[in-house]
């Protein structure tokens, strides 16, 4: 058991709610509803992991997000789930940052805030991320990163982990600090109580900008990003949509006929 309280930092991201997305029946094009934003699902699992460690060992949990002002929504949500502190890293100059730059921004923010025993991120963001931000943080801070964690025990500045790799559950030992990535395999996210939800809006949001974390403007944002999205196309779903008619037997016969025609079935 560690003598002092652990410091855990969790990175969370606000993303568009793709579950609410619908496809236009006529054109097969995505209809995007405006401003339906949620906490990235994997990140909720990251918060849950942090809070459960807090309950077991005693810890202070900081939730941090990089985003525009309305990203504070996910910080409030993190607090309702049990985070103690909230940090918003926000600067107009960060807009358009790709994963590499985002990782750098978060890593510098973490360094600015101080030392942490554990840093937890979600594995992947649903809005087209590279599942790499946790890695950029680990590489920048030069600490290990462990994924697919099944069990974790912490004692005397070390973590003993059971993690899945390939077909094996490996038993490993890592010295603190290190980065962990969580997703739906890791745990089940708790439901916040009504009183937690009502109290979370009272949380103070600590704000960081480029001035706080350092670096030069050209390192950040669109200009600082090594990758660029040159175009984005809707995925067109144009299919024959032939409705097979008749009795069930006739339908089965027709389907078999079509599969033969397409050279899927042969005599």
């Amino acid at each position, binding site marked *: 058991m560690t003598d002092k309280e652990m410091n855990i930092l969790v990175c969370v991201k606000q993303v568009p709610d*793709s579950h609410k997305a619908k496809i236009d029946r006529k054109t097969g094009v995505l209809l995007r509803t405006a401003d339906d934003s949620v906490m990235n699902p994997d990140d909720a699992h990251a918060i849950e992991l942090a809070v459960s460690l807090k309950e077991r060992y005693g810890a202070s949990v900081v939730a941090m997000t990089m985003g525009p002002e309305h990203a504070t929504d996910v910080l409030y949500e993190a607090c309702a789930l049990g985070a103690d502190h909230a940090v918003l890293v926000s600067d107009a100059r960060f807009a358009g940052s790709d994963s590499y730059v985002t990782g750098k921004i978060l890593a510098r923010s973490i360094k600015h805030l101080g030392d942490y025993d554990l840093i937890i991120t979600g594995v992947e963001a649903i809005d087209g991320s590279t599942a790499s931000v946790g890695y950029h943080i680990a590489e920048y801070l030069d600490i290990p990163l462990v994924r697919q964690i099944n069990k974790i025990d912490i004692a005397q500045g070390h973590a003993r982990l059971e993690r899945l790799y390939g077909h094996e559950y490996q038993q490993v030992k890592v010295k603190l600090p290190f980065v962990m990535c969580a997703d739906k395999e890791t745990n089940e996210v708790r439901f916040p109580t009504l009183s937690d939800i009502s109290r979370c809006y009272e949380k103070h949001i600590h704000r960081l900008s480029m001035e706080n974390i350092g670096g030069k403007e050209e390192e950040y944002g669109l200009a600082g990003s090594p990758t660029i999205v040159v175009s984005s196309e809707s995925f067109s779903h144009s299919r024959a949509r032939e409705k097979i008619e008749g009795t069930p037997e006739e339908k089965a016969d027709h389907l078999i006929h079509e599969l033969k025609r397409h050279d899927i079935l042969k005599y």
Partner: protein
Amino acid sequence: MLKKADCSGIFVFVEIQDHERVLEGALEMLTRARELADRLNEKLYALVMALGADEYLDEIETYGPDAIIYCSDPGLKHYNSEIFPEMFEHLVKEYRPSILLVPSTEAGNDLAPRMSHRFHTGLTAHCTSLEIIDSEEYGENLLLMKRPAFSGNMVASILCPETRPQVATVQPGVFGREPAGKRDGAERIALDFTFDAGTLRVSQEAAPVRWDRCSVSLEQADVIIAGGRGLLQKENFELLDELAAMLGGEVGATRVPVFNDWCDEGRMIGQTGKTVRPRLYIGFGISGQIQHTTSIIDSEIIVSVNIDDRAPVNEISDYVIHEDAGRFLRLFIEKLRNERVTFACR
């Protein structure tokens, strides 16, 4: 940081699976990389690090790399996130490839972002397409990487114009696998294993415990018979096995059957990273949530069987059968049995 003008060549991480075979996805990547290297007129390097890398060299050579850089050591039996990135970092610094291709697997998804960071370069993950383009705005001979975005409803085209190497991970199953035509053979470059195991920060404590996951690869299947909520009972879902066996296919599922314990989680199609492209996909009792439909959209033929006339999956189907899924499944199996057909897919 590598200078663009100094870089040339394509590196492919040829991952060894279960320390016994070359990952099929790696051979698929080599196939495509050979075409890209020809287009660029640059060298293609296959990189193999394994317990006994030598045994894979002949097979890898048939896919036409110009050189195979390999290292054999017990320390390389499993992918290790401290050893492999360090070795790759040295090799990238030495050979200065302009492109690094990595399969989108557990190992690859650990290696690629670390390389991206160490070389201050971009990473495009889960690519579904790779080509070389000339862009007026960004330059010549650039790797254009396409990947799904917004849960698969969009396709984003991405460039990494200035930094090197351009790093991409590719899903197994995206590219076809085709040995190269007659070529001169690959230069074989053997490396000594010099990693100091004393520097490892994540250490193994006890012997690992084996976990047998469902060993089928849905990504490689030519025929997928999938079932969803509309099958109503486990009994009906289990019939999918029979139909799959008759058609030489694999069984897939949406979230509900897994949740109801009708099948193993490994069958689920519609979680991050799993896309399938069978010749034939038949969905029984699947309504078609976005996560599932975008994962199956590349199927050559999509058939949906559903009691709900307005199921979203119908929009992306070639054939729609408006029937109770369980009943139609039984009927279809019966009919096929009488037909005594064989399946054309290999």
